[in-house]
Every structure is written in structure tokens, then in C-alpha cells.
């Protein structure tokens, strides 16, 4: 069991890191632990948590900007935003419940360290897209900042966005500044039923290619739709193809009518009002339709929408699986039977020939240590990746082995 260090302030974190760097001790970086069952298991002597670095440090609702210390729980941030009618537009995904870690434990630092964005990413961009600036400490115990609090900023190399998706392997963020957005006045969902995967994805992309600003485009195949808790879909025994419209109240009916007209050939949709929609789309954010189980592993596959159904079909030739498609097909969440390699060989082969990459989200720790969790890198990209790692953390102390086995 590693020691647990919990600094209460940025300066304290910096001095702790300085000490650990001097002693060349490996550091596992965590927030409140929401992500500990995901990724590879870091090799470390000390667990360093940012959970003591809490609090919103700047919130300007009229400028749509907020700053918070990295350990601030996401739910706290969302509560403060909601009180002013605002939100994080990119709908951060909380992996906790789906991976057997506590729910609601995700920190805002973890949101940007993983860059896992939810359904609205297709219209509002990712966590990375909404990040404006960071303060962080690297593996040389240097405190640095990048970006700022303004929307447009091209001053120097964009280190802040470059830290997103690096899983704490480059630097420990101490404070993040990000865009927020007004909560739309009205939300409505159209649900088309019974479409096979390929046709459903075609429908989602027809919708995305209209100027109607669809803000969610998800397809839930039949074997996954049965898991939905939304009352309207209780006992449903067919696939659901879901499109979300969000706008001001006076415009919603017109948009809905236009979207229905554009998708006429796909059938007559079930309609969900604001409240029903809110419940439904939160099921994707919390991944409650991919509940934790030791009998299955969970993959997350990024690809082109037009390749998504093919990839799932190819994998299903080798193993039974349950999938749902987000981002109009550009993101596949895929549950497969637990196995020694979590199905990695078949999943990666199916993705490789069609383009994209796959990340293993849920599997037993030994499985996550033995197979590549992140898609292996091409040699020239691996060279740059190692170079970046060593530029930030030359001794390789931060989250060693968390993303890749050797660094």
C-alpha cells in the first residue's frame, strides 16, 4: 500500500513534488478516486491526491467563464452553475459507476485530464475544446500556467489543451479555467424505433447534416435499450435512435417539425419533453446503461460515423456484445464478455482496418496491466509522445505506466 499525500494548497503540492522529485519516488496522481479503476495501474511509491485543492476561484456568469481548483468535485461546480442557469456544455462523463468506483467523485481536474466528453460534444465541442487555461506543476516541480481566462488566446504554444487527455502523466493541474454556457430554455428528443444499426447511423447523420443544431445523436440497439430507465421506454423491445434539440422556447416547435420532415423515411418518432429528455440524456452521461460488472469489459471506440456499425458487426462475429453509439456514430461504447485480454485482439483488429482507435475502459486490474489500454502508437508518434513526456517529467515519476507500459 502506497503512502497517501494530500496537499491543501498549490504551494504545498509544489513542495511535496519537489521532495519526491529529489528522492526520485514514483507518484500516482489521483483526484477523489473516480478514475482509479480505469486506465493502466500506475507504478508508484506515493499516492498524491488533489482532493484538498478545492474551490471555485472565479465565476463570471456574464462572461461565461469559470476557474476552479483541480480537486473541486464536478457536482459542486455543476450545482453552482445550475443556480445561475448555466452548465458545462460538453457534458463530462463520469466513469465512476461503470467501473465500480464511487459515483459523483469525479474532480474537475479529472474531467480535463481524461477529456471524456458526453453527447453534446457533437455541437459544443469536447472538454479540451472548452478549456481556456491551466495552472499546473510538472515533474520538475515547476509551477507554470498556460492559456488564460479569455475566449480567444493564441499567445504561445497551447500547453493547456495539450495537457488534456494526458491522464496526469505530464503535470498535475492545480487550477483550470473553462468556458461555461447557458442552459437551453427547452429540450426535446425525437426517438425513432426499430432501426438496425447501419440505418440508424445514417439517420443520425442526416440529422447532423441539417442546420438544426442537433445537440445529441445517439443510437441504442435493442439489447441495450432494455436497460434504459426512462419511464417512456419501460419494456421497450426495439432499438432507439435518439436526437436531441435544444434552443429557445419560441423556436423549438419549428425545428422539431423540420427535423421530423428531414427524417420522414425513418418512421414516426416518439417525442420526449424537456423533463423526460433531461432524464434520458443523463443516462448516457452517467453510463448507467453500461453498469459495472465483473463479467464484462467495456471499450470506448472513436471512429468515423460511417464505419461504426461495421466495426461493431465485425466484433460481434467473435463475441457477443452490447453497444451504444454516441456522437452520431463517432463514439462507440462496447461491452464484451470478460476475458484474459478483454477481447483486445479482436476489437483492435476490427478498428484498425476501418480507422479509429479503441480504449479499454473497464477490466480487471491484471487485464489492464497485461493488454494495451490505449491504442498503441505509430513509431514516429511514440517518439514524439516520449519526448513530450520527458520534457514535462524527465525522471518519469508521474503516473508511470498509467497510459503506456514503458513510460
Amino acid at each position, binding site marked *: 500500500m502506497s503512502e497517501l499525500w494530500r496537499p491543501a494548497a498549490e504551494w504545498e503540492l509544489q513542495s511535496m513534488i519537489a521532495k519526491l522529485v529529489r528522492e526520485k519516488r514514483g507518484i500516482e496522481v489521483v483526484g477523489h478516486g473516480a478514475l482509479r479503476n480505469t486506465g493502466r495501474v500506475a507504478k508508484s511509491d506515493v499516492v498524491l491526491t488533489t482532493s484538498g485543492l478545492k474551490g471555485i476561484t472565479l465565476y463570471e456568469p456574464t462572461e461565461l467563464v469559470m476557474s476552479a481548483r483541480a480537486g473541486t468535485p464536478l457536482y459542486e461546480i455543476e450545482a453552482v452553475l445550475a443556480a445561475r442557469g448555466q452548465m458545462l456544455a460538453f457534458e463530462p462523463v463520469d466513469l465512476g459507476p461503470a467501473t465500480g468506483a464511487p459515483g459523483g467523485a469525479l474532480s474537475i481536474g479529472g474531467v480535463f485530464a481524461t477529456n471524456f466528453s458526453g453527447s453534446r460534444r457533437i455541437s459544443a465541442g469536447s472538454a479540451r475544446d472548452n478549456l481556456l487555461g491551466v495552472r499546473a506543476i510538472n515533474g520538475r516541480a515547476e509551477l507554470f500556467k498556460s492559456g488564460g481566462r479569455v475566449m480567444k488566446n493564441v499567445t504561445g504554444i497551447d500547453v493547456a*489543451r495539450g495537457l488534456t487527455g494526458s491522464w496526469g502523466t505530464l503535470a498535475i493541474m492545480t487550477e483550470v479555467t473553462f468556458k461555461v454556457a447557458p442552459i437551453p430554455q427547452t429540450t426535446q428528443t425525437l426517438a425513432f424505433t426499430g432501426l438496425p444499426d447501419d440505418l440508424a447511423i445514417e439517420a443520425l*447523420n442526416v440529422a447532423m447534416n441539417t*442546420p438544426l443544431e442537433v445537440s445529441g445523436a445517439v443510437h441504442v440497439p435493442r439489447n441495450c435499450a432494455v436497460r434504459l430507465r426512462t419511464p417512456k421506454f419501460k419494456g421497450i423491445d426495439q432499438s432507439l435512435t435518439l436526437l436531441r434539440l435544444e434552443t429557445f422556447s419560441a423556436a423549438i416547435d419549428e425545428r422539431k417539425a423540420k427535423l421530423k420532415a428531414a427524417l420522414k423515411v425513418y418512421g414516426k418518432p416518439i417525442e420526449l419533453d424537456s423533463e423526460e429528455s433531461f432524464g434520458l440524456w443523463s443516462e448516457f452521461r452517467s453510463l448507467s446503461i453500461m453498469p459495472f460488472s465483473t463479467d464484462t469489459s467495456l471499450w470506448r471506440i472513436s471512429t468515423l460515423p460511417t464505419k461504426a456499425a461495421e466495426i461493431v458487426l465485425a466484433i460481434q462475429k467473435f463475441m457477443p456484445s452490447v453497444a451504444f453509439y454516441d456522437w452520431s456514430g463517432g463514439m462507440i461504447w462496447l461491452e464484451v464478455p470478460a476475458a484474459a485480454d478483454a477481447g483486445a485482439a479482436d476489437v483492435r483488429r476490427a478498428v484498425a482496418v476501418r480507422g479509429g482507435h479503441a480504449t479499454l475502459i473497464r477490466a480487471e486490474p491484471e487485464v489492464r496491466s497485461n493488454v494495451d489500454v490505449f491504442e498503441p502508437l505509430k513509431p514516429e508518434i511514440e517518439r*514524439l509522445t516520449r519526448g513530450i513526456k520527458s520534457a514535462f517529467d524527465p525522471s518519469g515519476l508521474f503516473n508511470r505506466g498509467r497510459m503506456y507500459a514503458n513510460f
Partner: protein
Amino acid sequence: MPHIELPEPDAGVIRRLPILIEGLKARVGKDLLILDEEGRRAYETDAFTSYRRVPMLVVLPRTTDEVSKILKFCHENDVKVIPRGAGTSLCGGSLPTEDSIVLCVSKMNRVIEIDYTNRIARVEAGITNLQITAQVSKAGFFYAPDPSSQLACSLAGNIAMNSGGAHCLKYGVTTHNVLGVKMVLIDGTITEIGGSSLERNGYDLLSYVIGSEGQLGVITEATVKLVPSPEGARPMMIGFRSPEAAGSCVSAIIAAGIIPVAIEYMDHAAIEVCEAFAGAGYPLDVEALLIVEVEGSESEIGILLGRVAEIAARFDPKTVKISADPDQSARIWAGRKAAFGAIGRISDYLCMDGTIPLAQLPHALTRISQLCAEHDLKVANIFHAGDGNLHPLILYDANSPEEAERAEIVGEAILRLCVELGGCLTGEHGVGIEKRELMSTQFSDTDLMVQMRIKSVFDPTWRLNQAKVFPLAITHVMRAGNAASTPEAA
């Protein structure tokens, strides 16, 4: 304003020029090279014209393979390279040096593949910004970032500078609209960074590349997002009695939860010049003008513009005028987009590009007027008000060195003001040579070191686009060309 220091050219490299020419001819053929002085002179500057240096050689490759061969050759022969797109940089981002080779990708301008279903296009990086939209507009799509120079500027340059534009309030800037690039490193390695799907694999290397101002590699291809064109769009013009009222109105619009596609600001000086140029119907009797554009269906546009007008009414506007027809809309935008050129016809100017937090807008405008008045200079303010990106144009006479120097002093003071107010030095034009030395006002040495180490990962010997972005003094060791040197050594 010739006080920006440029490093002394390396006479040794210039002496080797004949050998270098032979070497390049052998690798890519003589047709790609521009050797004569007149030809090279066309590349001596960019849109930051106060500085000019004729490069020793210009190369115009047509393929990624050729770019790779050229860079490998330069790497092996210790030659510096200035990557160039269309040469429209406003900060000297593609200014050559006498001992460098300009590698210009403008001949690589093909569309490789358009995929409407997945809403992406793969293009060569020398294509102009507007050409991408031109190729896809019939199908109902466009490429979103729209810098004012979009008719001429290249995508390569947009990626290098992370360009924005008037409509980025809604659609984001280049970094939000590019999914992947093909980039050649200085040693000739061809890399694919990012891809064509939304999510990236591994570290987000593309974030370092976009906005890196040619410091990391030469971009030859890119995969960009295509956005469905809106059903309609219409601007309205709101004239105010004071700049402060206009500034407050911008904050109030955003605070009301309305995010227009664009909110542009012009002051009286700018309005007069642009009206004379474009005949857009701008009101001439106001101190400040906002152009607010919204998108959507006819009825949505009507509702949104109505709400904007209601908010504006709280600030006692002198005129509120909704564009009557597409022709007037086009003229309203033509006037705005031609603003820099129109002002350039009446005076030399320095164009600033700082960004400030929105709430500081009225204060910043007041301070800018004061600073200019204190130095006896006129200023025209034109900028993207919705995101706080200021473009004060400081008017001066380039024939008077003394006035030019005063203009530069005011420019620097304005940029320092932006940083003090919580903003930054540059919102969309980039650092280049122009703001290189001011980087230390926004960043600590450590902040800059963190950035410079990233440069060193991609370009270990610092041969690409030297003497830009980072203050000259702190990059001395790396620029000296010692392959083993790292930023720590500085």
C-alpha cells in the same frame, strides 16, 4: 518602427549557397527553386511590412514527399527554414532571414477528399481558407473560421496561427475545427497527428501544433470539420452615443444567454472610413457601432434580433437598423472585412490584437483613447467585441521615424494593458516577431521554458522559423544550433 532586433545572418551558410542549391536541385529538381533576386524579393516580408529580409532561397514544393526531402536536406546541412503559407501574417510570422530558405506550401492547394456524411474534408495545406468553403458551399456546408484575410490566407497559415475570425464566437477558432494534420518534421519524418475522427489517440499533440507558428514542423495536409450552413443569417447595426454604452451592451447580450454568431465593434473613425469604402449604410452620426449577426430560420432570426434590440434599448442607442436584404448584409460584412485595407488607404497603422475579459471592455476602450491622446496619435477601433478580442489600429505616418516610434510605444502600452486586465497579448494574429519580446509580460520564465521544451521535442536543433514567438535573449543557446542544447541550458 525598426526596433525589433533580428539575429545577424550566418555568413558561413550564405557562402555555402551554391552547394546548397546544387544539393536541392539533385533532390527535388530545379523547377521548385526560386533563385533570382526579383523572385526572392516577393517573399521578403508578409503583411507585417515594416520588416523585410530577402531570403537566400525560396522553395515551392508540390508534394509532402518533396517537403520531406527539402527539410531533411536542410537538417543535414544546418540550414534554417521559414515555413510559409500565403504570407498574410500580421505579426511577422513568416518574415525570412537572409540566411534561411523559405519553404512555401502555396502550390499544395488541392482538395483531396470531401466526405459530407462524416462532415469532413481532407485538403492540402496551401489551399486558401475561402477556397475550402467555396468547394463545399453548394452542398450546404462551410469551413467555419473566417479571418478577414480569408480570400488570400492559407489553411497552413491558419493552423500555424490558430486563426479566428468574426464568426468564431459561435463556431470556435482553428483549433476547434481541425481534426488532424500531416506534418513533416525538420529531419524529414512525415507524421500524421490527430486523425479524422473526433477523439484523438494518446497525447493531444495536435493542440501543441495548432498555433505553434511554424515552430514545430511544416504542415502539408489537414482534415477539417465541415459545418452545415445555417438556414439564414442577418446582421443588425446598433449605433451608440459612446463607446462605453456599446461595450456595456455587448456584456448585456452575452449575459442574457444569447450567443450571436458575431458581435463586431467599430468606432467613429473606423465607421467613416469603412462607409466611404463599402457604402454599407453604416450610421455616420454615432460614436460606436455594433454589428450583431444571428443565424437560424426567418422566424428565429426575427425573434433573436428583436431580443437583441430590446437589450440594446437599455443603452440609449441612436440607431437600430436591421439589414433589409441579403445585398445589404453582404455590404455590411464587406465593409467590416475590408476595414483594415480601407484604413490602410488613408494612413499607415499598427494593428493590435490583444484580448480582454468582456467586463473590462468599457474601461479598456477609455484607456486606449487616453493612451493614444497622450501620445498625440489617432486610433481607429475595430474588433470582435463578443469575445473581447480588440483590434485598435494606431494611425501614424511611416515616413516619420519619430511618429512610428510613438505608435510602437502606444501599441506596447495597449498590449500591456490587455495583460493587466486579465487578458492576453494576441487573440488571433499570433506572436511572430512583433510581440516576441512582450511574451515575458504575460508569461514567467518557467511558463516560457515549458513551451520551449515542446519546441525542442519537435525541432531539437531549432532550425524552424527562428527568432520568433520567444524572447530573443532566452533562446540564444538553442538558436546557436547546438544539437545537444536544451532549454535548460539557456
